[in-house]
């Protein structure tokens, strides 16, 4: 076993992990980046649309207050207000910083970073590079890490002396000294050798959980590792029932079912039609959003060129609304031959426009489905895309309840409430990745002595990791995985029913002992069957949290839709569902009050809007109703760093 000592170990090398690692290194810490795949392949590369930041480059009326409001609305007020506030204020600085590291975003006519429209964002807000923004972000951060290594090589002669990437390594256990983090244990894919990292601080940046579902836009890495590692180390998860089904995944051919079709298609003019050719989204605008969305096709179409005098097309409602609407159309028998609906940009924009704005979508459909999106509509349907729930963290420092354990990006919870707006993920990674790195570094500085790893814990972690290889006659891990995916897809999917979720909980209980007995044939050298066997523990534990939390929350909100409780409940809005591991090793749920929003932030909303979310008592506590709402037009004295971009 190879043993390393670091100040901060960052698990995950996507946007959040790399940004955290850079920040910790800039604060003088020795940092290890653990990367499940090769360096630069993280799931962040899949992000297409852009990074939301209220720079006001395209519409000068934009500022952090508008962005904050949009984020809270999108999350149906289940967000941690403080995270939404920090995110809206700091996102512009984080985007500009990427330019300093060499990123090349698309430009406005006057040479600033261009910004595009997206669902739920009041103004054009997404910094982008065509439809491959995630790749630009990951490459820029990757190259920034390499730049720091070059600097270290020049100054100390050792490129990997203060920041080192451990590619194709997977952590299977966090180790503690008493109640504090002391390190992490894992294996190397290349030869199956074990690695031990001794470190007082760990930043989880492992992304999501999509691989527990059958139809997903997520890659094989998204097995809920960070969620499970946190739980097993004694940390808590919040609101795991909130899962985003992206409205537009490919539905045909079967082998690509679930692969993402960027929301930019709609932001750039694409519309949704059913098999009768009808633009059905006009029938699905919920009351809470009615004032902001167009009622006729004419008004919606005028909005693309004159957004100040027209309301937005309903295709640009937040993702949860659009996904549910597509689901209803298909269920009503108005779906396409392959069980989706049509996404049409071919009849609405020129071939040149589509090729310029959506090159990778063109490429993807041409090569994988033999469909020319400049000439014919795409067939699309909902796909499991993102988990809003995640590790319960302090909104400012990203610290979990376990000292020394931090989480940032998709693996953390709270920022997006019950539903994330498109574009808020890439900016979330940057804002909270930086914060996690910063506060992990400060935590290390505050320690009087370094925690110690116990030999017994390491021995136990080794035994656990070797178990699938030592089973001689157990079940095939691929079979257990397929059953888990089918269960979650069918029983805890986009529309949920009590008896189905109960059936899911029972099925998961049946899978748990079977998982413990899976057998991975073959040896330790780059053995995918073995790796999957170990990932299964995480997927099962996280799925249990999702199913149990979904059963508990008796309302419909964002990424949690109950057929038996179809309405939002102001009482349930006040509650976070907190998940932990009980003494029996299984997930347990408890209710905890949602932090109360500060009055100055509440004042950014009109009372009529707050009525849709708050309880009568909360409304009674608000200042006198005669007050005009604070208009978030940049005239206020309090400005975030992002407010003065115009």
């Amino acid at each position: 076993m190879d043993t390393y000592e670091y100040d901060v170990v960052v698990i995950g090398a996507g946007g959040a992990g790399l940004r955290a690692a850079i920040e910790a290194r800039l604060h003088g810490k020795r940092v290890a980046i653990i990367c499940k795949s090769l360096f630069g392949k993280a799931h962040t590369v899949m992000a297409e649309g852009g990074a939301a930041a209220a720079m006001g480059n395209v519409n000068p009326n934009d500022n952090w207050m508008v962005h904050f409001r949009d984020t809270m609305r999108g999350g149906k007020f289940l967000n941690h207000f403080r995270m939404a506030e920090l995110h809206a204020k700091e996102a512009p600085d984080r985007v500009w910083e990427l330019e300093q590291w060499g990123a090349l975003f698309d430009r406005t006519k006057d040479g600033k970073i261009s910004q595009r429209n997206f669902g739920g964002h009041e103004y054009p807000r997404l910094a982008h590079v065509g439809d491959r923004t995630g790749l630009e972000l990951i490459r820029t951060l990757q190259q920034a890490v390499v730049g720091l290594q070059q600097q270290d090589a020049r100054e100390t002669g050792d490129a990997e002396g203060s920041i080192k990437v451990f590619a194709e390594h997977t952590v299977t256990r966090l180790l503690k000294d008493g109640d504090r983090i002391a390190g992490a244990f894992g294996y190397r894919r290349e030869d199956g050798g074990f690695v031990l990292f001794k470190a007082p601080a760990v930043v989880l940046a492992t992304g999501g959980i999509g691989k527990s579902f059958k139809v997903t836009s997520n890659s094989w890495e998204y097995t809920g590792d960070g969620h499970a590692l946190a739980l097993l180390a004694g940390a808590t998860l919040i609101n795991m029932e909130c899962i985003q089904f992206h409205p537009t995944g490919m539905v045909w051919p079967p082998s690509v079912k679930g692969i993402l079709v960027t929301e930019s298609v709609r932001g750039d003019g694409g519309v949704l039609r059913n098999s009768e050719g009808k633009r059905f989204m006009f029938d699905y605008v919920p009351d809470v959003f009615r004032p902001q969305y167009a009622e006729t096709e004419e008004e919606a179409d005028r909005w693309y060129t004159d957004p100040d005098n027209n309301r937005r097309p309903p295709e640009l409602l937040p993702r949860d609304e659009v996904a549910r609407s597509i689901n209803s159309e298909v269920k009503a028998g108005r779906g396409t031959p392959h069980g989706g609906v049509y996404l049409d940009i071919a009849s609405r924009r020129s071939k040149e426009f589509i090729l310029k704005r959506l090159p990778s979508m063109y490429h993807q459909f041409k090569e994988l489905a033999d469909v020319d999106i400049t000439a014919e509509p795409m067939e699309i349907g909902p796909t499991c895309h993102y988990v809003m729930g995640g590790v319960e963290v302090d909104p400012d420092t990203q610290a979990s309840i376990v000292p020394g354990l931090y989480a940032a990006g998709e693996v953390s919870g709270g920022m997006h409430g019950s539903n994330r707006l498109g574009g808020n993920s890439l900016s979330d990674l940057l804002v909270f990745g930086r914060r996690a790195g910063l506060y992990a570094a400060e935590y290390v500085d505050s320690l009087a002595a370094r925690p110690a790893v116990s030999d017994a814990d390491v021995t136990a972690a080794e035994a656990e990791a070797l178990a699938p290889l030592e089973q001689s006659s157990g079940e095939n891990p691929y079979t257990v995985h397929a059953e888990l995916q089918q269960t979650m897809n069918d029983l805890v999917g986009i529309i949920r029913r009590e008896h189905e979720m109960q059936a899911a909980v029972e099925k998961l209980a049946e899978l748990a002992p079977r998982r413990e007995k899976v057998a991975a044939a073959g040896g330790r050298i780059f053995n995918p069957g073995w790796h999957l066997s170990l990932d299964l523990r995480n997927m099962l534990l996280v799925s249990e949290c999702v199913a149990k939390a979904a059963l508990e929350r008796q309302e419909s909100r964002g990424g949690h839709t109950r057929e038996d409780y179809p309405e939002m409940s102001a009482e349930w809005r006040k509650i976070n569902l907190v998940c932990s591991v009980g003494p029996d090793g299984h997930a347990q749920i408890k209710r905890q009050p949602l932090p109360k929003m500060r009055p100055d932030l509440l004042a950014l909303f009109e009372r009529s809007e707050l009525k849709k979310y708050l309880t009568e008592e909360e409304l009674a506590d608000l200042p006198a109703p005669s007050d005009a709402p604070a208009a978030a037009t940049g005239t206020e004295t309090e400005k975030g760093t992002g407010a003065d971009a115009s």
Partner: protein
Amino acid sequence: MTYKAKFKVWRGDDQDGGLHDFTVEVNDGEVVLDVIHRLQATQAPDLAVRWNCKAGKCGSCSAEINGMPRLLCMTRMSVFDEDETVTVTPLRTFPVIRDLVTDVSFNYEKARQIPAFEPPKDLKPGDYRMAQVDVERSQEFRKCIECYLCQNTCHVVRDHEENKQSFAGPRYLMRMAELDMHPLDTRERRKEAQEEHGLGFCNITKCCTEVCPEHIKITDNALIPMKERVVDRKYDPLVWLGNKIARRK
């Protein structure tokens, strides 16, 4: 539409290995990676293969299919006849770890040798101004998904282990060109491209362009313009003659 396809997949490690025969089910619309996954799930659970996004965006599943460097996820089964045997082998230029997985650390070492972006020191965040037309040149190269198919196919290193030391390969020479064309990069890169990273080895056979899954015109848009800028005008005999004549006027 389902049929049984014949596959030959290279299996082995850095010591020893060979082609193994498989007969495997193929369904409508599938790509080669689907078939490899089916082999894992049903016949060879420890078959080693790299993959992530399965949508041609991450560049992990590079291999050689019937001898052509390709992404497994972007090669549709429909391009083969049903009775054709499909042969899948690991990238040839890099050492095998196991089965279809190779040690691509060469590329990461080369990446670290290319000096990072150097912006003007007086420019503050948010003050960057660049025209779209100026960023587009480098943006084409930043589409690169680092699948290393170009590095694998380039004959300078494919069969010449000895050149690996002094040749960065198409991907990283393109990175030099990308930085050189970056509107705000201040570093002089032409000389080091030629003298330290082996631009001169490239004799523009365009093999890299041919295998690029992102259809980046590596040779035409990155390497040739870089070569042209390296060859400073004073060494060009026509320019020299032109200058002489012009001066006589």
